[in-house]
């Protein structure tokens, strides 16, 4: 539901990479330079197509000569028509073959290029961390991977070819024309550079229009994407009308921008042909007078008209070509804006890390604040977790518990030397291996719209049934699965929508447990699970995780109680720590919590006091 402010923010953010306003600059087309490394890959085929298109234009240039000879033979009263006609047929056949070959090659290059770009984009996006995804929404990235890549593709397939053919057409036509009548040709040349210059200038001006249009498209995509993902919330709140209203605004805005761009393009399409009109007029006027004075033949006059097509055809198209070029440049700019985004988490492993993990975790003076946030999420956290220990974190909403667990698997970028695993900085481990050995189960249960089997064994789909059932047993999910008619083959709907809250959460739990990691971190994994099932899971875990490091976050004392040590976090700091018994003796926050949670029938006064203590 991007609102006005957001949209402005978004536009402003694109403004950073290219000048805005109605006046474009030469730099805009310069974005195309970024494609060179990708195109270079295909330079062999490219050279071939260039030669191909040159030959095609050469063949095109010979056709008017055949027409001229036919016309002249008629005016001279001794018609020879067979030769020119056959000549044209021969030329056309060659041209056809060449054309098929070159055009196909060119378009293959464009398809291959968009394939490369799409692949690159995907790989790049996959490496990104939270700051990237805060900035670019799913809809936005999708819009780039679909629309912008298509623009680039069209650019390579058509715009580029048209420009090449433009140069070839014009030069070949001029050469042939010159050979027929130098003086008439000299008259034809002067308007050409003017036309080219105007075309170029206009297409530069088009750039901002196109870019705005692309941004608006991204907004439409994001809007629909987000709205449909939150459709239940919208329906539950009865806000459909408002949403439709807002979508109508977004769509109108988009339509307006497209209209503005189209209007400008239409203008280009008027100006360009008008400017080329000078040429036929010159040929009619000056050429006609040359025919009357007998300096050139009617055949030459006719041929000039045919050459005129070769000259003005591409010039008329140049408006469209350049607008394709500009659109392509805008698409390129948007693509590389994303591709230039450096992933915050770099995988730069060092060789000296141990081959197997004991599970000894150290956090040393870790402070962290999220990019764009004004407060730090963690402040000077130091924890030493022995291998095999079970640790629980408790604390208020937003105090930083999840951030601590994320720091262990580098979902956030922690400073060097602050998080150590078995004595080595976690940055020294290969990222994939770190996340394999330290398994984090996220707080927000997410499932893919696939079968339960593939969700549970997401990290390694080649697993057999047995480990899957073991994991679902450990997550107390097996009984539920057996009730589904399709068992493990049950498709769970988008984001697990057809499962109950607890089933979803336990499925993500099973997905983590199946990895049997040396360190397991569970971020509030029992919040949607009833106490009885939770106890069952915890009892199972106790067996499974014996001797292995386990970290968990919970709001329930009944869960935390199972841990060897408990840390109370508040405002990003550790405020209490110790075992269940120690903390109870201490009589602080934890003891208060325990009192509230374990005694339902307390009198109101005592609760009020506790509440007061807790809330400060």
């Amino acid at each position: 539901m991007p609102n006005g402010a957001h949209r402005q923010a978004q536009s402003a953010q694109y403004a950073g990479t290219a000048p805005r306003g109605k006046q474009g600059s030469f730099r805009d087309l310069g974005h195309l330079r970024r494609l060179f490394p990708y195109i270079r890959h295909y330079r062999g085929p490219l050279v071939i197509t260039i030669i191909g298109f040159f030959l095609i234009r050469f063949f095109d240039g010979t056709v008017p000569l055949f027409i001229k000879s036919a016309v002249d033979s008629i005016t001279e009263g001794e018609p020879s028509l067979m030769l020119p006609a056959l000549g044209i047929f021969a030329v056309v056949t060659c041209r056809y073959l060449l054309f098929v070959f070159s055009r196909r090659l060119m378009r293959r290059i464009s398809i291959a290029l968009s394939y490369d770009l799409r692949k690159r984009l995907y790989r790049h996006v996959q490496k990104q961390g939270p700051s990237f995804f805060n900035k670019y929404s799913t809809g936005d990235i999708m819009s780039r991977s679909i629309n912008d890549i298509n623009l680039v593709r069209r650019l390579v397939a058509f715009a580029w070819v048209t420009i090449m053919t433009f140069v070839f057409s014009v030069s070949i036509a001029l050469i042939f024309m010159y050979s027929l009548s130098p003086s008439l040709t000299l008259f034809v040349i002067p308007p050409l550079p003017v036309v080219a210059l105007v075309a170029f200038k206009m297409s530069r001006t088009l750039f901002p229009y196109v870019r705005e249009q692309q941004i608006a498209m991204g907004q439409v995509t994001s809007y629909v994407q987000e709205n449909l993902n939150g459709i239940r919330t919208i329906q539950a709140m009865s806000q459909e009308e408002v949403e439709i209203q807002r979508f109508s605004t977004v769509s109108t805005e988009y339509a307006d921008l497209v209209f503005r761009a189209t209007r400008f393009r239409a203008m280009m399409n008027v100006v360009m042909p008008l400017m080329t009109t000078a040429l036929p007029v010159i040929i009619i006027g000056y050429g006609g007078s040359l025919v009357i004075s007998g300096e050139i033949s009617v055949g030459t006059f006719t041929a000039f008209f045919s050459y005129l097509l070769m000259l003005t055809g591409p010039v008329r198209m140049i408006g469209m070509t350049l607008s394709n070029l500009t659109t392509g440049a805008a698409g390129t700019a948007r693509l590389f804006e994303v591709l230039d985004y450096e992933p915050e988490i770099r995988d730069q492993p060092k060789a000296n890390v141990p081959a197997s993990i004991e599970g000894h975790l150290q956090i040393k003076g870790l402070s962290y604040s999220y990019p764009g946030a004004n407060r730090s999420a963690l402040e000077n956290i130091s924890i030493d977790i022995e291998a095999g220990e079970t640790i629980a974190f408790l604390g208020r909403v937003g105090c930083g518990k999840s951030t601590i667990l994320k720091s262990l698997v580098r979902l956030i970028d922690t400073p060097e030397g602050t998080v150590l695993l078995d004595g080595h900085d976690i940055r020294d481990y290969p990222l994939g291996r770190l996340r394999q050995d330290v398994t984090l189960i996220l707080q927000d249960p997410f499932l893919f719209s696939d079968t339960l089997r593939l969700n549970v064994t997401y990290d390694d789909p080649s697993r057999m049934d047995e480990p899957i059932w073991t994991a679902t047993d450990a997550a107390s999910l097996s009984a539920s699965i057996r009730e589904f008619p399709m068992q493990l083959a049950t498709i769970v709907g988008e984001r697990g929508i057809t499962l109950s809250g607890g089933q979803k959460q336990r499925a993500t739990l099973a997905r983590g447990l199946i990895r049997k990691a040396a360190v397991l971190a569970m971020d509030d994994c029992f919040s949607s699970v009833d106490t009885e099932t939770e106890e069952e899971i915890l009892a199972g875990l106790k067996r499974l995780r014996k001797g292995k490091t386990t970290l968990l976050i919970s709001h329930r004392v009944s869960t935390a109680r199972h841990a060897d040590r408990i840390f109370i976090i508040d405002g990003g700091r550790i405020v209490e720590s110790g075992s269940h018994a120690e903390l109870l003796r201490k009589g602080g926050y934890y003891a208060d919590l325990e009192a509230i949670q374990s005694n339902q029938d307390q009198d109101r006064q005592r609760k009020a006091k506790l509440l007061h203590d807790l809330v400060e």
Partner: protein
Amino acid sequence: MSDQTYATPVPQSSPPQRDYSAFDADLTGQAFNFQLFARLLRWLRPYRLTVAFSLLFILLAAGLAVMLPVVTGLVVIDNILRPESVSGEEPDFGMTELTYLISDVSGYTPLIAACILYLAMVTAQAGIMYLHRITLASSVLKALRDLRVDLFSTLEDKPSSFYDRVAVGRVMTRVTNDIESLNELLTGFGMLVGEFVPFFVALFLMGAISPSLTLIVLFAIPIAAVATYFFRMAMRDIFRLIRNSVSALNQYLQENLIGIQVVQLSGREGMNEEHYGRLNHDNRRFEFQAINYETLYHSFNESLASIAIGAIIWFGGGQVVQDEITLGAMILFIQLITMMIMPIVGLGEQFNVLYRAMASGERIFQAIDWDERLKEPEHPVELPPRLRGEIELRNVHFGYNKGEPVLKDVSFNIRPGEKLAIVGPTGSGKSTIIRLLARFYDFDDDMIFLDGIDLNQIRSRDLRRRIGVVLQDFHIFSGTVRDNIMLNNPDISPQQAEQAARTVNADGFIRQLADGYDTHLAERGQNLSQGQRQLLAFARVLAADPEILVLDEATASIDTATELVIQDALHKLTEGRSSIIIAHRLQTIQECDRILVLHHGVVREFGTHEELIKKQGIYYTLHELQFQDGAIAAELAGADTEEADSPVEQQADDDDDGTPPSMREPDSF
């Protein structure tokens, strides 16, 4: 939803099981479907005047375009350069007279006059073309905007059963890409009209000058038609394959972006890249196949013009020699050929677009026509301005899928102003009750009553305005914090929003954010903690000030202290309002008047806290588990296996699993 079959036969009146596969795979993409096109015209109708003008302009421009070669061929070459050959019979649309008229008026030579005429016509043509383009664009863009919004509104109305089955990515492309290809179609169609007009004018002209030569030119048409036919045959499947692969690419990308953290944590980047690569590869393969045919066909059409020129020289030249036609006429033919062949080539060019657009139109209308709606009453009962808040469920049977009952004979009632708690193991159907109460799914008549009115007699929107549900799987939108609480509802003031935030104790953290209530939240509220997100979702419902409040695990991710504050505030707020609270933490439901225990879709216990404790059933077990220490809990759980389907007895055994005593204090893993 679907026909439900239960052990006890229950009268059912549900719609048939639907086949959603159409939304997953693509349609067969039959050839041109003119009905579709006719439907599309419906959206153009409000702008028909603009469209009419646009067509008028293109006709004018096209007419002028044909006149240009007439000026060069018949006027300049025949009359001015070779006056000796004039037969005076060629239909030149008065161009010759016009030229001489200009020459007479201005005093210039006929040649210069011809130049002036030519220039004037080109200018007029370009200007009219401009008008055509902008009128067409304006009407098409507006019509498609309307279509897009209409499509979007039907999607807003689709019930949950639809979104349970159909992936968002698939529907989404209909609103974005598919509409875009219709844009291409309509704009391209205008262009095609603009090319076919000169085709017919030129044909008329040629026919008048030399019928025999015209026949030769016309010979190109069946050739082009045959080529087009073969092309269409070859491309039929490929287009579908291409669009399928694009759709698959998008869907895969979108899901991976949403679940990116799971992807990264599972180390699936490589594998997913490979999978995406495969989809991408398929796409490339089909595209390659398409261009093979495409280039063959397209280049062939382009060559037709030159072949026709050769033929004209051959045959036309002979006719000139025999004085059947003038040289200018032959040259006119040569120039007109391009104009004749252009629409045929254009048709080929537009063919891709046309084909794709037809399929897109099909997809769009499929979504619009998809008649899956909630049953809305024909004669809705208006709710009283103030609800008493009495809710009754009578023998509710419900299942999402045929043969899989979820709720079995559920009956209970909520008295006006009462707070009801629903507890029960996960998957027992608690949220399902809520979904029915908020009319997310269809169910039979006379099962659920609000203030004595059958829920099916109330319009779903009216109902949802009165019942505020904090959903278990809520959604946070990108936008500001305030927007997320108000949800752009004009009836909610910013003050109310802030008040609601204070009620759920979210005001504190919101004010500490960079821009307070104006802080921009990323998609799905990624830059908040889970608990903070839940607080916002909670505040959002309170801000709407519903008469009946339903909380489905609304405080599951919220710490006890905050929850106590909320409970305190809610206590005052919900005084006299009926509410339903679902929770696993009994802490949460302490304030409730009565408790309903749901187990496998069956009501197992229903009564006050004291009654249920006395009963020593499921609730008692849960209570003991949570409020007493682990040892007793384990004991209780072990003793209570026939009540609970998932026994916890192994916990007792696990105590002597050889864990060193130091690790077992008090009860470690």
